[in-house]
């Protein structure tokens, strides 16, 4: 495991975005040869998404032959709710770049059969040839996606009840009203993430930098 430390959030974001850009460009995706990317949401990757959009606008990067798989999505939140991960990805990334909707995959938290939706997601990843690069964040307690510490290392995409800490942290996005915060989410498993050919995790929590 490599550990790279940057001085500021901006530098860390740029480093991450450059890394993703270089990996995609090196891979040279084209018709029938897609670069599959696993993606996160949250405040940490915002700077990285901004840089990726900038690279697209400068003509340095295209997402035409990139397929994306997001890590997670809330259960029971309307897809067009401003706090859904669909909204996050649209507003912060998809609407600014040249990615095709059919190449975008985000778990549907309103599916009639949630576990079937999770299983189908795993199948879609397999059908896409697996994930080339999984990018994500690490939470303050070390969680990855919604896999809290102690999750099985071979876990797959599934329904998870959110930890109280997570619900409390999210309350600020729901007018501080705990009753409005989703309590469950669909998440890729630790095993799903580790299956990727490469995993890159970023965090902007200072104590994490010191401990790791």
């Amino acid at each position: 495991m490599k550990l790279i430390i940057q001085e500021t959030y901006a530098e860390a974001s740029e480093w991450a975005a450059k890394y993703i850009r270089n990996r995609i460009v090196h891979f040279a995706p084209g018709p029938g040869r897609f670069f599959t990317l696993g993606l996160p949401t949250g405040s940490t990757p915002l700077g990285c998404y901004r840089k990726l959009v900038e690279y697209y606008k400068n003509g340095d990067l295209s997402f035409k032959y990139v397929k994306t798989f997001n890590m997670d999505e809330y259960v029971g939140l309307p897809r067009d709710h401003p706090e859904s991960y669909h909204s996050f990805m649209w507003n912060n990334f998809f609407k600014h770049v040249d990615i095709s909707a059919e190449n975008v995959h985000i778990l549907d938290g309103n599916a009639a059969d949630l576990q079937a939706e999770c299983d189908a997601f795993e199948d879609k990843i397999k059908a896409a040839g697996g994930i080339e690069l999984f990018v994500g964040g690490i939470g303050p307690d070390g969680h990855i996606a919604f896999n809290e510490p102690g999750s099985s290392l071979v876990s797959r995409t599934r329904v998870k009840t959110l930890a109280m800490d997570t619900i409390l942290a999210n309350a600020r996005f729901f007018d501080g009203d705990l009753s409005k915060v989703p309590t469950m989410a669909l998440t890729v498993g630790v095993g799903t993430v580790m299956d990727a050919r490469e995993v890159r995790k970023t965090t902007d929590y200072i104590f994490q930098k010191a401990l790791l």
Partner: protein
Amino acid sequence: MPSNKSVSDAPIAQFTNCRLLRGHRLQREDLWVREGKILNPEKLFFDEKGSADVQLDCKGRILAPGFIDVQINGGFGVDFSLATDDFRSGIDLVGQKILSHGVTSFCPTLVTSPPSVYHQILPQIDVRNGGAHGAGVLGAHVEGPFISKEKKGAHPEHCIRTFEENAFQDLLATYGSLDCVRIVTLAPEIKGSSEVIRELTKRGICVSLGHSVANLSQAEEAVQHGATFITHLFNAMLPFHHRDPGIVGLLTSDKIPAGRRVFYGMISDGIHTNPAALRIAHRAHPKGMVLVTDAIAGMGLAPGRHTLGQQVVEIDGLNTYIAGTKTLSGSVATMDTCVRHFLEATGCSVETALEAASLHPAQLLGIEDRKGTLNYGSDADFLMLDDSLHVQATYIAGEEVWRRDALGM
């Protein structure tokens, strides 16, 4: 890129590189249009896996909802109060010409006239959508004849009336038909007006107070019965007095029924109202401001004499008077001029100035679900403007219906 739209195969246009007015702010967002309506691109992306068929670069300009003029008596030689054989072509001409002023919907206005004129003209006003042929017609605004003789302004005194015994029937007989009528301006102090206001409001017709010597309580009572608009605030009404503010007092009245808003029209041409008065009204009740042109036949024409219903008026620059007098009679200002003057005189934000000519008139007429905004699902009637609010292009139902050419025409 082939698009795979499950909802519709109609072409999708994406207007990029613009600042659009939405949520009361200018936002850096693209405007998406399909089948004449504003489209939600996020829904298109996730639900239909769709994308744009054509992208249009707006070069950083402002996109705003099309202007709505609820008081316009004519223009370009056409007088909406004159019953002619080719009246419809007059509506067509004005509707087409005002596209260049940014107006995408309007209410042809008739001044006080004899019943025969209403009977001839009103059936010839068709409520219809706009398009390449011209701005949409929302319905007629009949200003009078049930107004005050003392505040007639440019209206012909001999046609001004009070209500007969059965007030509403009298009104129906006078106009002949209410089918295409959208707004009625009347003086609420006239006996029988309460009944009339209630009946009109029941039929979804907007009642406006104007050309009146009503005091504040009479005006408030009219609002209780359903009136929601004031015709050209300050003009043709009692001046504001600190012990009886008259109709002007409605702007800060505490007797407006809950959930209701009183709107007021203002001709912000720099002539009908002193800029200080414009500012006082705006600051007292900013959400009620509705910009109107009150344009007359001479608008768009050279200075000189023109008709306004039964009268002759004289144009001299931006001033129009009853011929031989100093009585103001309508204006020759265009809607975009009014918007720019309002912006400059009040120092308000660009968003506020634009909303006074689009969102507010749409709210007045209860049509903001489809006009007056750039919200998803709304009719795609919009304008491309430069930073000083000069109209560069006009769109109705997503189609370009007017464009400023290189020579600035």
